[in-house]
Protein backbone atom coordinates (compact mmCIF):
# COMPACT_ATOMS: atom_id res chain seq x y z
CA UNK A 1 0.00 0.00 0.00
CA UNK A 2 2.76 2.40 1.00
CA UNK A 3 4.48 1.71 -2.33
CA UNK A 4 1.64 3.56 -4.00
CA UNK A 5 2.89 6.76 -2.34
CA UNK A 6 6.59 6.07 -2.72
CA UNK A 7 8.42 8.17 -5.28
CA UNK A 8 11.53 6.95 -6.97
CA UNK A 9 14.37 9.31 -7.77
CA UNK A 10 13.60 9.24 -11.50
CA UNK A 11 9.94 10.11 -10.86
CA UNK A 12 10.86 12.99 -8.58
CA UNK A 13 13.34 14.43 -11.08
CA UNK A 14 10.81 14.02 -13.89
CA UNK A 15 8.14 15.89 -11.90
CA UNK A 16 10.54 18.68 -11.04
CA UNK A 17 11.56 19.01 -14.71
CA UNK A 18 7.91 19.20 -15.77
CA UNK A 19 7.25 21.94 -13.21
CA UNK A 20 10.28 23.90 -14.33
CA UNK A 21 9.21 23.59 -17.97
CA UNK A 22 5.76 24.89 -17.07
CA UNK A 23 7.19 27.88 -15.22
CA UNK A 24 9.46 28.75 -18.11
CA UNK A 25 6.64 28.71 -20.66
CA UNK A 26 6.96 32.00 -22.51
CA UNK A 27 4.27 34.58 -21.88
CA UNK A 28 2.51 35.82 -25.01
CA UNK A 29 3.55 39.27 -26.04
CA UNK A 30 0.59 41.52 -25.27
CA UNK A 31 1.23 44.17 -27.91
CA UNK A 32 -2.31 45.49 -27.85
CA UNK A 33 -2.83 45.47 -24.09
CA UNK A 34 -2.59 48.73 -22.12
CA UNK A 35 -2.43 48.41 -18.32
CA UNK A 36 -3.77 51.59 -16.71
CA UNK A 37 -3.12 52.40 -13.06
CA UNK A 38 -6.02 54.51 -11.83
CA UNK A 39 -8.35 55.36 -8.98
CA UNK A 40 -11.42 53.14 -8.92
CA UNK A 41 -15.07 54.15 -8.74
CA UNK A 42 -16.59 56.80 -10.98
CA UNK A 43 -13.29 57.98 -12.39
CA UNK A 44 -12.35 54.53 -13.67
CA UNK A 45 -15.86 54.00 -15.02
CA UNK A 46 -15.72 57.31 -16.90
CA UNK A 47 -12.28 56.52 -18.33
CA UNK A 48 -13.84 53.38 -19.80
CA UNK A 49 -16.97 55.17 -21.00
CA UNK A 50 -15.34 58.27 -22.49
CA UNK A 51 -11.88 57.14 -23.60
CA UNK A 52 -11.40 53.38 -23.76
CA UNK A 53 -14.65 52.13 -25.29
CA UNK A 54 -15.20 54.86 -27.92
CA UNK A 55 -11.59 55.68 -28.83
CA UNK A 56 -9.24 52.78 -28.07
CA UNK A 57 -11.22 49.55 -28.36
CA UNK A 58 -12.27 50.22 -31.99
CA UNK A 59 -8.56 50.42 -32.82
CA UNK A 60 -7.98 47.01 -31.26
CA UNK A 61 -6.52 48.14 -27.91
CA UNK A 62 -7.38 46.04 -24.87
CA UNK A 63 -7.35 48.16 -21.71
CA UNK A 64 -6.81 46.51 -18.31
CA UNK A 65 -7.19 48.54 -15.10
CA UNK A 66 -5.07 48.37 -11.96
CA UNK A 67 -7.39 50.23 -9.59
CA UNK A 68 -6.18 51.65 -6.27
CA UNK A 69 -5.64 54.99 -4.58
CA UNK A 70 -2.51 56.79 -5.71
CA UNK A 71 -0.28 56.14 -2.63
CA UNK A 72 -0.23 52.32 -3.05
CA UNK A 73 0.18 52.68 -6.81
CA UNK A 74 3.14 55.01 -6.34
CA UNK A 75 4.60 52.56 -3.79
CA UNK A 76 4.22 49.81 -6.40
CA UNK A 77 5.99 51.93 -9.03
CA UNK A 78 8.84 52.45 -6.58
CA UNK A 79 8.98 48.73 -5.78
CA UNK A 80 9.19 47.95 -9.51
CA UNK A 81 11.85 50.57 -10.19
CA UNK A 82 14.63 48.03 -10.63
CA UNK A 83 12.60 45.79 -12.95
CA UNK A 84 13.24 45.90 -16.69
CA UNK A 85 9.51 45.44 -17.32
CA UNK A 86 7.04 46.99 -14.93
CA UNK A 87 3.42 45.94 -14.58
CA UNK A 88 1.68 49.11 -15.77
CA UNK A 89 1.89 51.19 -18.94
CA UNK A 90 0.38 54.41 -17.68
CA UNK A 91 -0.50 55.82 -14.26
CA UNK A 92 -3.20 58.33 -13.30
CA UNK A 93 -1.70 60.83 -10.82
CA UNK A 94 -2.18 64.38 -9.61
CA UNK A 95 0.28 66.99 -10.91
CA UNK A 96 1.99 67.07 -7.50
CA UNK A 97 2.38 63.28 -7.52
CA UNK A 98 3.64 63.32 -11.11
CA UNK A 99 6.32 65.78 -10.00
CA UNK A 100 7.22 63.45 -7.09
CA UNK A 101 7.53 60.28 -9.19
CA UNK A 102 9.60 62.18 -11.75
CA UNK A 103 11.93 63.32 -8.96
CA UNK A 104 12.25 59.68 -7.93
CA UNK A 105 13.27 58.75 -11.47
CA UNK A 106 10.23 56.53 -12.03
CA UNK A 107 8.65 58.04 -15.14
CA UNK A 108 9.52 58.42 -18.81
CA UNK A 109 10.24 61.83 -20.37
CA UNK A 110 7.49 62.10 -22.98
CA UNK A 111 8.07 62.36 -26.71
CA UNK A 112 5.32 64.82 -27.64
CA UNK A 113 5.71 64.04 -31.36
CA UNK A 114 3.91 60.77 -30.57
CA UNK A 115 0.90 62.62 -29.08
CA UNK A 116 -0.66 64.63 -31.95
CA UNK A 117 -3.52 65.94 -29.79
CA UNK A 118 -1.01 67.53 -27.39
CA UNK A 119 -0.71 70.50 -29.76
CA UNK A 120 -4.00 71.74 -28.28
CA UNK A 121 -2.93 71.40 -24.63
CA UNK A 122 -3.15 74.43 -22.34
CA UNK A 123 0.57 75.14 -21.70
CA UNK A 124 0.17 74.79 -17.89
CA UNK A 125 -1.00 71.18 -18.37
CA UNK A 126 2.05 70.06 -20.33
CA UNK A 127 4.95 68.63 -18.35
CA UNK A 128 8.06 66.89 -19.70
CA UNK A 129 7.08 63.80 -17.66
CA UNK A 130 3.26 63.82 -17.79
CA UNK A 131 0.09 65.44 -19.08
CA UNK A 132 -2.83 67.05 -17.25
CA UNK A 133 -6.11 65.43 -18.26
CA UNK A 134 -8.59 67.39 -16.15
CA UNK A 135 -8.41 70.34 -13.80
CA UNK A 136 -10.45 72.14 -11.22
CA UNK A 137 -9.81 74.70 -8.51
CA UNK A 138 -9.90 74.57 -4.72
CA UNK A 139 -12.90 76.62 -3.62
CA UNK A 140 -14.79 77.31 -0.41
CA UNK A 141 -17.86 75.16 0.24
CA UNK A 142 -20.52 76.24 2.69
CA UNK A 143 -24.05 75.36 3.69
CA UNK A 144 -26.14 78.55 3.27
CA UNK A 145 -28.74 77.27 5.75
CA UNK A 146 -26.20 77.32 8.57
CA UNK A 147 -23.59 79.88 7.43
CA UNK A 148 -25.77 82.93 6.85
CA UNK A 149 -23.03 85.24 5.59
CA UNK A 150 -21.16 83.60 2.71
CA UNK A 151 -17.39 83.50 3.28
CA UNK A 152 -15.55 85.30 0.51
CA UNK A 153 -11.98 84.34 1.38
CA UNK A 154 -9.95 81.46 2.83
CA UNK A 155 -9.36 83.75 5.81
CA UNK A 156 -13.11 83.84 6.51
CA UNK A 157 -13.60 80.11 5.90
CA UNK A 158 -10.56 78.69 7.69
CA UNK A 159 -11.34 80.76 10.73
CA UNK A 160 -11.45 79.66 14.39
CA UNK A 161 -14.78 81.52 14.60
CA UNK A 162 -16.32 78.69 12.57
CA UNK A 163 -15.79 76.41 15.60
CA UNK A 164 -16.86 72.80 15.04
CA UNK A 165 -18.69 73.73 11.84
CA UNK A 166 -15.39 73.77 9.95
CA UNK A 167 -14.46 70.45 8.33
CA UNK A 168 -10.93 69.55 7.22
CA UNK A 169 -10.00 66.57 5.04
CA UNK A 170 -6.97 64.60 6.26
CA UNK A 171 -5.79 63.42 2.83
CA UNK A 172 -6.01 67.02 1.53
CA UNK A 173 -3.28 68.19 3.89
CA UNK A 174 -1.24 69.85 1.11
CA UNK A 175 -4.12 71.95 -0.22
CA UNK A 176 -5.29 72.77 3.30
CA UNK A 177 -1.81 73.99 4.21
CA UNK A 178 -1.62 76.04 0.99
CA UNK A 179 -5.09 77.59 1.54
CA UNK A 180 -4.38 78.35 5.21
CA UNK A 181 -1.03 79.84 4.19
CA UNK A 182 -2.70 82.06 1.58
CA UNK A 183 -5.29 83.09 4.17
CA UNK A 184 -2.54 84.25 6.51
CA UNK A 185 -0.44 86.25 4.07
CA UNK A 186 1.60 83.35 2.67
CA UNK A 187 1.50 81.85 -0.82
CA UNK A 188 1.63 78.43 -2.51
CA UNK A 189 5.41 78.74 -2.10
CA UNK A 190 5.22 79.62 1.58
CA UNK A 191 2.66 77.84 3.73
CA UNK A 192 4.32 78.58 7.08
CA UNK A 193 2.06 81.53 8.09
CA UNK A 194 -0.98 79.22 7.90
CA UNK A 195 0.15 76.77 10.55
CA UNK A 196 -0.85 78.97 13.46
CA UNK A 197 -4.29 79.54 11.90
CA UNK A 198 -4.85 75.79 11.51
CA UNK A 199 -3.84 75.10 15.12
CA UNK A 200 -6.28 77.79 16.28
CA UNK A 201 -9.08 76.23 14.18
CA UNK A 202 -8.35 72.79 15.62
CA UNK A 203 -8.41 74.23 19.13
CA UNK A 204 -11.76 75.87 18.35
CA UNK A 205 -13.24 72.47 17.46
CA UNK A 206 -12.63 72.01 13.71
CA UNK A 207 -13.41 68.44 12.68
CA UNK A 208 -10.98 66.32 10.69
CA UNK A 209 -12.28 63.68 8.26
CA UNK A 210 -10.26 60.84 6.75
CA UNK A 211 -11.54 61.13 3.18
CA UNK A 212 -13.40 63.36 0.74
CA UNK A 213 -16.41 61.08 1.02
CA UNK A 214 -16.51 61.28 4.83
CA UNK A 215 -16.37 65.09 4.52
CA UNK A 216 -19.28 65.03 2.05
CA UNK A 217 -21.28 62.82 4.40
CA UNK A 218 -20.66 65.25 7.27
CA UNK A 219 -21.76 68.16 5.07
CA UNK A 220 -24.90 66.23 4.21
CA UNK A 221 -25.78 65.49 7.83
CA UNK A 222 -24.95 69.14 8.72
CA UNK A 223 -22.35 68.00 11.24
CA UNK A 224 -20.17 70.64 9.53
CA UNK A 225 -21.12 73.58 7.34
CA UNK A 226 -17.92 74.92 5.79
CA UNK A 227 -14.70 73.63 4.27
CA UNK A 228 -12.60 73.68 1.11
CA UNK A 229 -12.72 71.30 -1.84
CA UNK A 230 -12.27 71.15 -5.60
CA UNK A 231 -15.12 72.82 -7.42
CA UNK A 232 -15.67 69.68 -9.54
CA UNK A 233 -16.36 67.59 -6.43
CA UNK A 234 -18.65 70.30 -5.09
CA UNK A 235 -20.67 70.11 -8.32
CA UNK A 236 -20.95 66.32 -7.95
CA UNK A 237 -22.08 66.70 -4.35
CA UNK A 238 -24.62 69.38 -5.33
CA UNK A 239 -25.96 66.93 -7.90
CA UNK A 240 -26.24 64.34 -5.12
CA UNK A 241 -28.45 66.72 -3.12
CA UNK A 242 -25.90 67.93 -0.57
CA UNK A 243 -26.87 71.52 0.38
CA UNK A 244 -23.70 73.45 -0.50
CA UNK A 245 -22.70 76.59 -2.34
CA UNK A 246 -19.22 77.41 -3.64
CA UNK A 247 -17.09 80.55 -3.55
CA UNK A 248 -13.79 81.22 -5.33
CA UNK A 249 -11.63 82.69 -2.57
CA UNK A 250 -10.34 86.27 -2.82
CA UNK A 251 -6.77 85.15 -2.10
CA UNK A 252 -6.71 82.89 -5.15
CA UNK A 253 -7.94 79.52 -6.43
CA UNK A 254 -5.26 76.80 -6.11
CA UNK A 255 -5.54 74.50 -9.12
CA UNK A 256 -5.95 70.76 -8.91
CA UNK A 257 -4.63 69.02 -12.00
CA UNK A 258 -4.97 65.30 -12.55
CA UNK A 259 -3.33 63.51 -15.42
CA UNK A 260 -1.22 60.60 -16.58
CA UNK A 261 2.46 59.69 -16.62
CA UNK A 262 4.23 56.70 -18.13
CA UNK A 263 6.50 54.52 -15.96
CA UNK A 264 10.04 54.21 -17.37
CA UNK A 265 9.65 50.43 -17.46
CA UNK A 266 6.18 50.39 -19.06
CA UNK A 267 5.95 47.16 -21.08
CA UNK A 268 3.82 48.74 -23.81
CA UNK A 269 4.96 52.29 -24.50
CA UNK A 270 3.15 52.61 -27.87
CA UNK A 271 -0.03 51.68 -25.98
CA UNK A 272 0.67 54.33 -23.34
CA UNK A 273 1.16 56.99 -26.05
CA UNK A 274 -2.09 55.88 -27.70
CA UNK A 275 -3.87 56.33 -24.35
CA UNK A 276 -2.36 59.78 -23.76
CA UNK A 277 -3.43 60.87 -27.23
CA UNK A 278 -6.95 59.46 -26.84
CA UNK A 279 -7.52 61.23 -23.51
CA UNK A 280 -6.87 64.56 -25.23
CA UNK A 281 -9.54 64.02 -27.91
CA UNK A 282 -12.14 66.81 -27.63
CA UNK A 283 -14.99 64.27 -27.32
CA UNK A 284 -13.33 62.64 -24.27
CA UNK A 285 -12.52 65.97 -22.65
CA UNK A 286 -16.04 67.31 -23.21
CA UNK A 287 -17.58 64.13 -21.80
CA UNK A 288 -15.44 64.37 -18.64
CA UNK A 289 -16.61 67.96 -18.14
CA UNK A 290 -20.27 66.91 -18.43
CA UNK A 291 -19.98 63.65 -16.42
CA UNK A 292 -17.51 64.64 -13.74
CA UNK A 293 -17.46 68.42 -13.53
CA UNK A 294 -13.76 68.88 -14.33
CA UNK A 295 -12.51 71.43 -16.85
CA UNK A 296 -10.87 70.32 -20.12
CA UNK A 297 -7.09 70.75 -20.41
CA UNK A 298 -7.21 71.39 -24.16
CA UNK A 299 -8.21 74.54 -26.01
CA UNK A 300 -10.39 72.90 -28.70
CA UNK A 301 -13.02 71.29 -26.40
CA UNK A 302 -16.53 72.76 -26.53
CA UNK A 303 -18.30 72.37 -23.21
CA UNK A 304 -22.06 73.18 -23.23
CA UNK A 305 -22.65 76.69 -21.86
CA UNK A 306 -24.80 75.56 -18.92
CA UNK A 307 -22.16 73.03 -17.83
CA UNK A 308 -19.38 75.56 -18.27
CA UNK A 309 -21.28 77.97 -16.02
CA UNK A 310 -21.45 75.40 -13.21
CA UNK A 311 -17.98 73.83 -13.39
CA UNK A 312 -15.88 76.65 -14.79
CA UNK A 313 -14.69 79.97 -13.48
CA UNK A 314 -15.64 83.49 -14.53
CA UNK A 315 -12.96 85.51 -16.35
CA UNK A 316 -12.41 87.36 -13.07
CA UNK A 317 -11.99 84.11 -11.15
CA UNK A 318 -9.75 82.65 -13.86
CA UNK A 319 -7.30 85.46 -13.17
CA UNK A 320 -7.07 84.19 -9.60
CA UNK A 321 -6.25 80.57 -10.58
CA UNK A 322 -2.86 79.69 -9.13
CA UNK A 323 -0.79 76.57 -9.75
CA UNK A 324 0.90 74.90 -6.80
CA UNK A 325 4.66 75.17 -6.37
CA UNK A 326 5.33 71.48 -6.92
CA UNK A 327 9.06 71.78 -6.25
CA UNK A 328 8.45 73.48 -2.91
CA UNK A 329 5.78 70.96 -1.91
CA UNK A 330 7.87 67.93 -2.95
CA UNK A 331 10.98 69.18 -1.17
CA UNK A 332 9.11 69.85 2.07
CA UNK A 333 6.41 67.19 1.90
CA UNK A 334 7.91 64.92 4.56
CA UNK A 335 8.28 67.89 6.91
CA UNK A 336 4.69 69.02 6.15
CA UNK A 337 3.33 65.54 6.83
CA UNK A 338 5.30 65.37 10.06
CA UNK A 339 3.84 68.70 11.18
CA UNK A 340 0.35 67.68 10.06
CA UNK A 341 0.44 64.33 11.85
CA UNK A 342 2.30 65.30 15.01
CA UNK A 343 1.52 68.95 15.69
CA UNK A 344 -1.83 69.47 14.00
CA UNK A 345 -3.56 66.09 14.42
CA UNK A 346 -1.45 64.74 17.27
Amino acid sequence: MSDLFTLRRRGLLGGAAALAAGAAWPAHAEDKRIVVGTWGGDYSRLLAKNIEKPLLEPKGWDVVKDEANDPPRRAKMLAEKALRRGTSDIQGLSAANMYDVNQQGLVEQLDYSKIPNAKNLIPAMKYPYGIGQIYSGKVILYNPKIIKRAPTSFAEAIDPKMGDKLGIIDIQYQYTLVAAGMASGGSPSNIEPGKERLLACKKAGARIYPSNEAFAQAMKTEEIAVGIMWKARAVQWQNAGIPIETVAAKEGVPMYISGFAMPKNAPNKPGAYAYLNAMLEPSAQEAFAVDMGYNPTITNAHVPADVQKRIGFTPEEEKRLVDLDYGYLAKNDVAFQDWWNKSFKG
Partner: protein
Amino acid sequence: MSLAAERPRGQLLTASALIGPATIFVAVSLFAPLAILFRYSLNDFDKTTKTMIEAVTGTNYVHFFTDPYYTSALATTVEVALLSTAVCFVVGFPLAYVVARTQSRFKHLLIIAIVLPLFVGNAVRAAGWMVVFGNKGFVNAGLMGLGLIEKPLEIMFTEKAVIIGIIAVNLPFMVLSLQSVIEGIDRSVEEAAFSLGAPPATMFWRVLWPLALPGILAGTILTFILAMNAYATPYLLGGPLFKMMAPLVYNQFTQQTNWPFGGAIAFILMAVTLGLTVAANLMIQRRTIR
Protein backbone atom coordinates in the same frame (compact mmCIF):
# COMPACT_ATOMS: atom_id res chain seq x y z
CA MET B 1 21.24 -2.23 -4.40
CA SER B 2 18.77 -4.34 -2.47
CA LEU B 3 15.05 -3.65 -2.44
CA ALA B 4 15.14 -3.24 1.37
CA ALA B 5 17.69 -0.43 1.10
CA GLU B 6 15.76 1.24 -1.74
CA ARG B 7 12.50 1.44 0.23
CA PRO B 8 13.63 3.80 3.08
CA ARG B 9 15.27 6.06 0.49
CA GLY B 10 12.07 6.10 -1.54
CA GLN B 11 10.07 6.92 1.58
CA LEU B 12 12.46 9.75 2.38
CA LEU B 13 12.01 11.14 -1.12
CA THR B 14 8.25 10.85 -0.76
CA ALA B 15 8.33 12.70 2.55
CA SER B 16 10.56 15.38 1.02
CA ALA B 17 8.26 15.74 -1.98
CA LEU B 18 5.23 16.07 0.29
CA ILE B 19 6.61 18.62 2.75
CA GLY B 20 8.97 20.32 0.29
CA PRO B 21 6.49 22.54 -1.60
CA ALA B 22 4.88 23.89 1.58
CA THR B 23 8.27 24.48 3.20
CA ILE B 24 9.63 26.25 0.15
CA PHE B 25 6.44 28.29 -0.16
CA VAL B 26 6.64 29.44 3.48
CA ALA B 27 10.36 30.12 3.24
CA VAL B 28 10.06 32.14 0.06
CA SER B 29 6.82 33.98 0.77
CA LEU B 30 7.38 34.71 4.47
CA PHE B 31 11.04 34.71 5.39
CA ALA B 32 12.46 36.22 2.19
CA PRO B 33 10.24 39.35 2.32
CA LEU B 34 10.93 39.65 6.04
CA ALA B 35 14.67 39.50 5.43
CA ILE B 36 14.39 42.14 2.68
CA LEU B 37 12.21 44.33 4.90
CA PHE B 38 14.66 44.06 7.77
CA ARG B 39 17.49 45.08 5.46
CA TYR B 40 15.44 48.07 4.28
CA SER B 41 14.81 49.06 7.89
CA LEU B 42 18.56 49.62 8.27
CA ASN B 43 18.69 51.99 5.27
CA ASP B 44 18.57 55.78 5.30
CA PHE B 45 15.92 58.02 3.71
CA ASP B 46 16.41 61.25 1.78
CA LYS B 47 13.47 63.47 2.77
CA THR B 48 13.79 65.93 -0.12
CA THR B 49 13.71 63.35 -2.93
CA LYS B 50 11.77 60.75 -0.91
CA THR B 51 14.19 58.00 -1.86
CA MET B 52 15.89 55.23 0.08
CA ILE B 53 19.67 55.44 0.53
CA GLU B 54 21.76 52.29 1.02
CA ALA B 55 23.21 52.25 4.54
CA VAL B 56 23.53 50.11 7.63
CA THR B 57 22.19 52.20 10.48
CA GLY B 58 19.90 51.82 13.46
CA THR B 59 18.65 55.42 13.10
CA ASN B 60 15.11 54.37 12.23
CA TYR B 61 14.77 52.27 15.39
CA VAL B 62 16.28 55.05 17.53
CA HIS B 63 13.95 57.58 15.89
CA PHE B 64 10.92 55.45 16.79
CA PHE B 65 11.79 55.08 20.46
CA THR B 66 12.85 58.70 20.95
CA ASP B 67 9.77 60.31 19.37
CA PRO B 68 6.75 60.41 21.72
CA TYR B 69 4.40 60.41 18.70
CA TYR B 70 5.46 56.88 17.77
CA THR B 71 5.86 55.51 21.29
CA SER B 72 2.36 56.75 22.13
CA ALA B 73 1.05 54.93 19.04
CA LEU B 74 2.70 51.73 20.32
CA ALA B 75 1.25 52.27 23.81
CA THR B 76 -2.24 52.84 22.35
CA THR B 77 -1.92 49.68 20.25
CA VAL B 78 -0.92 47.54 23.24
CA GLU B 79 -3.66 49.10 25.37
CA VAL B 80 -6.38 48.51 22.75
CA ALA B 81 -5.16 44.95 22.12
CA LEU B 82 -5.08 44.06 25.85
CA LEU B 83 -8.47 45.62 26.51
CA SER B 84 -10.21 44.02 23.54
CA THR B 85 -8.64 40.62 24.34
CA ALA B 86 -9.79 40.84 27.97
CA VAL B 87 -13.34 41.76 26.91
CA CYS B 88 -13.36 38.97 24.31
CA PHE B 89 -12.36 36.48 27.02
CA VAL B 90 -14.88 37.68 29.61
CA VAL B 91 -17.74 37.80 27.09
CA GLY B 92 -16.61 34.77 25.11
CA PHE B 93 -16.05 32.24 27.91
CA PRO B 94 -19.70 31.91 29.06
CA LEU B 95 -20.84 31.75 25.45
CA ALA B 96 -18.25 29.10 24.60
CA TYR B 97 -19.26 27.11 27.71
CA VAL B 98 -22.94 27.16 26.77
CA VAL B 99 -22.18 26.13 23.18
CA ALA B 100 -19.85 23.36 24.34
CA ARG B 101 -22.25 21.93 26.90
CA THR B 102 -25.57 22.31 25.12
CA GLN B 103 -27.33 19.14 24.06
CA SER B 104 -29.67 21.04 21.75
CA ARG B 105 -30.15 19.78 18.23
CA PHE B 106 -29.68 23.41 17.12
CA LYS B 107 -26.09 23.46 18.38
CA HIS B 108 -24.69 23.61 14.83
CA LEU B 109 -26.89 26.67 14.17
CA LEU B 110 -25.41 28.34 17.26
CA ILE B 111 -21.90 27.70 15.97
CA ILE B 112 -22.82 29.04 12.53
CA ALA B 113 -24.28 32.15 14.19
CA ILE B 114 -20.95 32.71 15.99
CA VAL B 115 -18.93 32.21 12.81
CA LEU B 116 -21.31 34.24 10.64
CA PRO B 117 -19.58 37.62 11.23
CA LEU B 118 -16.40 36.13 9.74
CA PHE B 119 -18.22 35.68 6.43
CA VAL B 120 -18.00 39.46 6.00
CA GLY B 121 -14.67 41.20 5.40
CA ASN B 122 -13.21 43.54 8.03
CA ALA B 123 -13.66 46.64 5.88
CA VAL B 124 -17.31 45.84 5.13
CA ARG B 125 -17.98 45.18 8.79
CA ALA B 126 -16.32 48.47 9.76
CA ALA B 127 -18.52 50.23 7.18
CA GLY B 128 -21.54 48.73 8.97
CA TRP B 129 -20.28 50.07 12.30
CA MET B 130 -19.86 53.50 10.69
CA VAL B 131 -23.57 53.49 9.91
CA VAL B 132 -24.37 52.49 13.49
CA PHE B 133 -22.00 54.95 15.21
CA GLY B 134 -22.50 58.07 13.06
CA ASN B 135 -23.98 61.29 14.41
CA LYS B 136 -27.26 60.40 12.75
CA GLY B 137 -26.58 56.68 12.96
CA PHE B 138 -28.62 53.94 14.56
CA VAL B 139 -27.36 54.45 18.15
CA ASN B 140 -27.65 58.23 18.23
CA ALA B 141 -30.93 58.36 16.31
CA GLY B 142 -32.37 55.71 18.68
CA LEU B 143 -31.23 57.46 21.86
CA MET B 144 -32.37 60.86 20.63
CA GLY B 145 -35.67 59.40 19.47
CA LEU B 146 -36.24 58.00 22.96
CA GLY B 147 -35.38 61.39 24.42
CA LEU B 148 -32.45 59.97 26.41
CA ILE B 149 -29.89 62.39 24.92
CA GLU B 150 -30.17 65.84 23.37
CA LYS B 151 -26.89 65.98 21.45
CA PRO B 152 -25.49 62.99 19.55
CA LEU B 153 -22.80 60.99 21.37
CA GLU B 154 -19.31 61.14 19.85
CA ILE B 155 -18.65 57.48 19.09
CA MET B 156 -17.32 57.54 15.55
CA PHE B 157 -13.60 58.31 15.22
CA THR B 158 -12.88 57.55 18.89
CA GLU B 159 -11.01 54.78 20.73
CA LYS B 160 -14.38 53.41 21.92
CA ALA B 161 -15.45 52.76 18.33
CA VAL B 162 -12.17 51.00 17.54
CA ILE B 163 -12.38 48.75 20.61
CA ILE B 164 -16.00 47.80 19.86
CA GLY B 165 -15.07 47.10 16.23
CA ILE B 166 -12.07 44.94 17.15
CA ILE B 167 -14.08 42.97 19.73
CA ALA B 168 -16.70 42.24 17.09
CA VAL B 169 -14.02 40.93 14.73
CA ASN B 170 -12.10 38.88 17.32
CA LEU B 171 -14.88 37.44 19.48
CA PRO B 172 -15.62 34.46 17.18
CA PHE B 173 -11.94 33.41 17.28
CA MET B 174 -11.99 33.45 21.08
CA VAL B 175 -15.31 31.58 21.37
CA LEU B 176 -14.31 28.87 18.89
CA SER B 177 -10.91 28.31 20.54
CA LEU B 178 -12.52 28.00 23.99
CA GLN B 179 -15.51 25.94 22.84
CA SER B 180 -13.37 23.22 21.22
CA VAL B 181 -11.31 22.77 24.41
CA ILE B 182 -14.27 22.91 26.83
CA GLU B 183 -16.02 20.26 24.73
CA GLY B 184 -13.06 17.94 25.36
CA ILE B 185 -13.36 18.30 29.15
CA ASP B 186 -15.41 15.46 30.63
CA ARG B 187 -18.60 16.81 32.22
CA SER B 188 -18.19 14.26 35.03
CA VAL B 189 -15.10 16.05 36.45
CA GLU B 190 -17.23 19.16 36.97
CA GLU B 191 -19.95 17.04 38.58
CA ALA B 192 -17.35 15.39 40.82
CA ALA B 193 -16.26 18.83 42.04
CA PHE B 194 -19.87 19.80 42.76
CA SER B 195 -20.59 16.51 44.52
CA LEU B 196 -17.60 17.14 46.80
CA GLY B 197 -19.19 20.46 47.80
CA ALA B 198 -17.30 22.90 45.61
CA PRO B 199 -19.27 26.07 44.83
CA PRO B 200 -19.38 27.06 41.11
CA ALA B 201 -16.58 29.63 41.48
CA THR B 202 -14.26 27.07 43.10
CA MET B 203 -15.15 24.46 40.49
CA PHE B 204 -14.33 27.01 37.77
CA TRP B 205 -11.03 28.06 39.31
CA ARG B 206 -9.80 24.61 40.46
CA VAL B 207 -11.19 22.37 37.69
CA LEU B 208 -12.43 24.15 34.58
CA TRP B 209 -9.72 26.85 34.35
CA PRO B 210 -6.67 24.51 34.48
CA LEU B 211 -8.25 22.02 32.09
CA ALA B 212 -9.37 24.75 29.66
CA LEU B 213 -6.02 26.54 29.83
CA PRO B 214 -4.76 25.36 26.40
CA GLY B 215 -7.91 26.80 24.79
CA ILE B 216 -7.69 29.99 26.86
CA LEU B 217 -4.07 30.44 25.78
CA ALA B 218 -4.87 29.73 22.12
CA GLY B 219 -7.87 32.10 22.15
CA THR B 220 -6.14 34.97 23.94
CA ILE B 221 -2.98 34.69 21.84
CA LEU B 222 -4.99 34.61 18.62
CA THR B 223 -7.19 37.58 19.53
CA PHE B 224 -4.26 39.55 20.96
CA ILE B 225 -2.20 39.11 17.79
CA LEU B 226 -5.17 40.03 15.60
CA ALA B 227 -5.84 43.16 17.69
CA MET B 228 -2.19 44.25 17.69
CA ASN B 229 -2.09 44.06 13.91
CA ALA B 230 -5.59 45.44 13.22
CA TYR B 231 -5.59 47.77 10.24
CA ALA B 232 -9.04 48.25 8.66
CA THR B 233 -10.92 48.75 11.94
CA PRO B 234 -8.67 51.46 13.45
CA TYR B 235 -8.30 53.13 10.07
CA LEU B 236 -12.02 53.32 9.34
CA LEU B 237 -13.48 53.68 12.84
CA GLY B 238 -10.61 55.49 14.56
CA GLY B 239 -10.41 58.31 12.03
CA PRO B 240 -7.46 60.59 11.33
CA LEU B 241 -6.69 61.46 14.96
CA PHE B 242 -6.44 57.91 16.28
CA LYS B 243 -3.05 56.21 16.06
CA MET B 244 -2.35 52.48 15.95
CA MET B 245 0.71 50.71 14.62
CA ALA B 246 -0.58 48.93 11.50
CA PRO B 247 -2.05 52.09 9.89
CA LEU B 248 1.21 53.84 10.81
CA VAL B 249 3.22 51.22 8.89
CA TYR B 250 0.94 51.64 5.87
CA ASN B 251 1.22 55.43 6.06
CA GLN B 252 5.02 55.32 6.07
CA PHE B 253 5.15 52.96 3.11
CA THR B 254 2.54 54.54 0.88
CA GLN B 255 1.98 58.17 1.90
CA GLN B 256 5.51 59.10 2.87
CA THR B 257 7.30 56.43 0.74
CA ASN B 258 9.67 56.08 3.70
CA TRP B 259 10.29 52.33 3.43
CA PRO B 260 13.23 52.22 5.88
CA PHE B 261 11.18 53.76 8.69
CA GLY B 262 8.07 51.78 7.69
CA GLY B 263 10.17 48.60 7.84
CA ALA B 264 11.49 49.54 11.27
CA ILE B 265 7.96 50.17 12.61
CA ALA B 266 6.81 46.83 11.15
CA PHE B 267 9.65 44.98 12.93
CA ILE B 268 9.03 46.79 16.21
CA LEU B 269 5.34 45.84 15.99
CA MET B 270 6.25 42.23 15.24
CA ALA B 271 8.82 42.07 18.06
CA VAL B 272 6.46 43.61 20.65
CA THR B 273 3.61 41.27 19.63
CA LEU B 274 5.87 38.22 19.80
CA GLY B 275 7.50 39.33 23.06
CA LEU B 276 4.22 39.98 24.86
CA THR B 277 2.73 36.73 23.56
CA VAL B 278 5.68 34.63 24.70
CA ALA B 279 5.82 36.43 28.08
CA ALA B 280 2.09 35.84 28.72
CA ASN B 281 2.44 32.21 27.69
CA LEU B 282 5.35 31.59 30.05
CA MET B 283 3.66 33.44 32.92
CA ILE B 284 0.45 31.43 32.66
CA GLN B 285 2.28 28.13 32.25
CA ARG B 286 4.45 28.79 35.34
CA ARG B 287 1.40 29.62 37.44
CA THR B 288 -0.27 26.42 36.31
CA ILE B 289 2.76 24.29 37.18
CA ARG B 290 2.80 25.83 40.66
